[in-house]
């Protein structure tokens, strides 16, 4: 039993079969990559996983509970955190404030909406936020306007914000898209470090094979809306079906 179980998921957009009979099981405490050529249905699958799209048939269970039809904040409260293709951070706020908000949201081990009576908590929350920033090597940037930072720093901050809530599953949607090589490598190092230090499941959707093969423990190849193969990176590398899907028949 995996922590995330996708069963018989089908999704049609008009005449297009975006997802056809997808079965996927992501095991706890692994890094699972989902790859595939353009139009393979990776983004649709991700949107189904986080409950944003409701599939025509099938089920998506996280730790025994269905995620379908839930609001995004409820899904986050279940323990699924999401990192977006373009970093979604609070651009108008400082880096420190960015980090304070997720810690405010999940304090004392539970999600809490109440902020009015939280003034006494504020000091501890600032301390915690600064602590997380130090571990990300961003402490010197804490009063920066977060929108003014580089793409790599924004990504770092976003991942840090997600992790500060101790999620059980971290979903990454092309985490290195549009990044310089140095930033990409930094991000890979950060994710490796997270994998080593924490009990966390990471699902990653990625184009960049360098990123995939440096991180993943399991890889699912998606083609034309259906999983083609699922295996370890070593076996995927030389798999004939994968070559065919990526390069076409002639290869």
């Amino acid at each position, binding site marked *: 039993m995996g922590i995330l179980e996708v069963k018989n998921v089908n999704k049609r957009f008009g005449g297009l079969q975006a997802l056809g009979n997808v079965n996927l099981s992501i095991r706890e405490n692994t890094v699972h990559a989902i790859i595939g050529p353009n139009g393979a249905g990776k983004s649709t699958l991700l949107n189904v996983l986080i409950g944003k799209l409701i599939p025509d048939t099938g089920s998506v269970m996280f730790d025994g509970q269905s995620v379908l039809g839930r609001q995004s*904040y409820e899904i986050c409260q279940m323990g699924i955190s999401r990192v977006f293709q373009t970093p979604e951070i*609070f651009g108008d706020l400082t880096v420190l404030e960015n980090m304070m*908000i*997720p810690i405010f*949201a*999940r304090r004392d081990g539970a*999600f809490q909406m109440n*902020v009015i009576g939280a003034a006494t908590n504020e000091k501890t929350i600032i301390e915690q936020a600064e602590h997380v920033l130090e571990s990300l090597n961003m402490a010197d940037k804490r*009063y920066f306007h977060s929108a003014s930072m580089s793409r790599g720093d924004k990504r770092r901050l976003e991942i840090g914000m997600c992790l500060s809530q101790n999620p059980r599953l971290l979903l990454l949607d092309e985490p290195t898209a549009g990044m310089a090589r140095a930033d990409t490598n930094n991000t890979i190092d950060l994710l490796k470090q997270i994998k080593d230090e924490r009990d966390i499941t990471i699902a990653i959707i990625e184009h960049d094979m360098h990123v995939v093969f440096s991180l993943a423990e399991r890889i699912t190849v998606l083609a034309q809306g259906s999983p083609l193969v699922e295996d370890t990176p070593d076996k995927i590398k030389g798999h004939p079906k994968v070559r065919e899907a990526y390069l076409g028949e002639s290869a």
Partner: protein
Amino acid sequence: MLGLNKRDFTLLLIVIALAGLAPFLLNPFPEGSAMAQFNAGYPDLMQKFVIYGIFAIGFNILFGLTGYLSFGHAAFLGVGSYSCVWMFKLLGYNVMPGILLSILTSGIFAYLIGVVSLRRSGIYFSILTLAFAQMSFALAYSVLSNPKFNLTNGETGLQVYSNDPQWLHSADKPDLPHLFGLSMRATHEMQLGAWEFQFNVGYYLCAVIMVAAFYLSIRIFRSPFGMMLRAVKSNNTRMYYTGLNARPYTLAAFVISGMYAGLAGGLLSAVDPLAGAERMQWTASGEVVLMTILGGTGTLIGPVLGSGLIKYFENIFSKINDSVLHSWFSFLPDGMEDFMVTIVHPFVGKGWHLTLGALFVLIVIFLPGGLVQGGQKIRGLFTGRTEAEQAAADANQSTPAE
């Protein structure tokens, strides 16, 4: 001090000083001089300055922090006004119950409208609030003023009649709005040489409430709640993926700003016990948007400055008529005089909107941060620092003190 950091406390002191000394500051020209018509230090106008200041401060809590642009805030102003006059009719002329009831009713009203309107964001939210405000206007103007059930007294406007119950009224109290016997219209006049200064009870009551409202707004801006509201404005998606439902926060902000508007409406009735439906019209809603943007959206003092500027234009610029213009240009030869008057004429008097509009365009293009940004630029000229550097310095100063 008072839970504020040094900068905010200084700002509060400045606002207290401005409000307290307004009768002096707004009357810089001696009586009878040519410039005396630019004096704004008479009770009626000073009351408007602070009351609309409260209105704009409240609006800024919603628009400045969450970015939700409400086009229907005048509805809450109107509800507040009607509530206050009803208290005059039923209980008597003491303003306290009226002001309290206007905050309460507008809060309930804002909750009901907010629950529906906040289901949408962006332009749809604006249109929904506008629709609700126009419905409220229609209700107040005609529907709720039929002989069987006369809540608003329609076109005439709600006012106190001699046959109203006024249960708590007694003969020893003034027959006008008063604060525990102290008439709102009581004015102390002070002659200092050629200058005349007026100290009005109604004005100082409004000013004290405005300072309190301003203090509360600073506390909201600097609180974790304020931070959450700024987070909603900055990135709603990330807010939801942080496990937070943004709706309760925006609804709370909407209700708070509605209560500010209701308070302002109540005070308008307290200084002049007549409430008309036109206070709810969409032009009044648009005016508070202009005030906030002119002064500086999302800044603490901006809305107060913006409302002051607009009310000054409305009341002072509109009084400059052709005969005043002729007296200004009388030093020119006859033909030139008429020519200058013709040129300036469209921009003053009834044309004051034109000047205000042009000013608004200039400010939005060159100072998107409003008058506050203008102030920062001027400060930058003296200190030699750019705005960004100042903002960074401010952040460094203010955040650890929180």
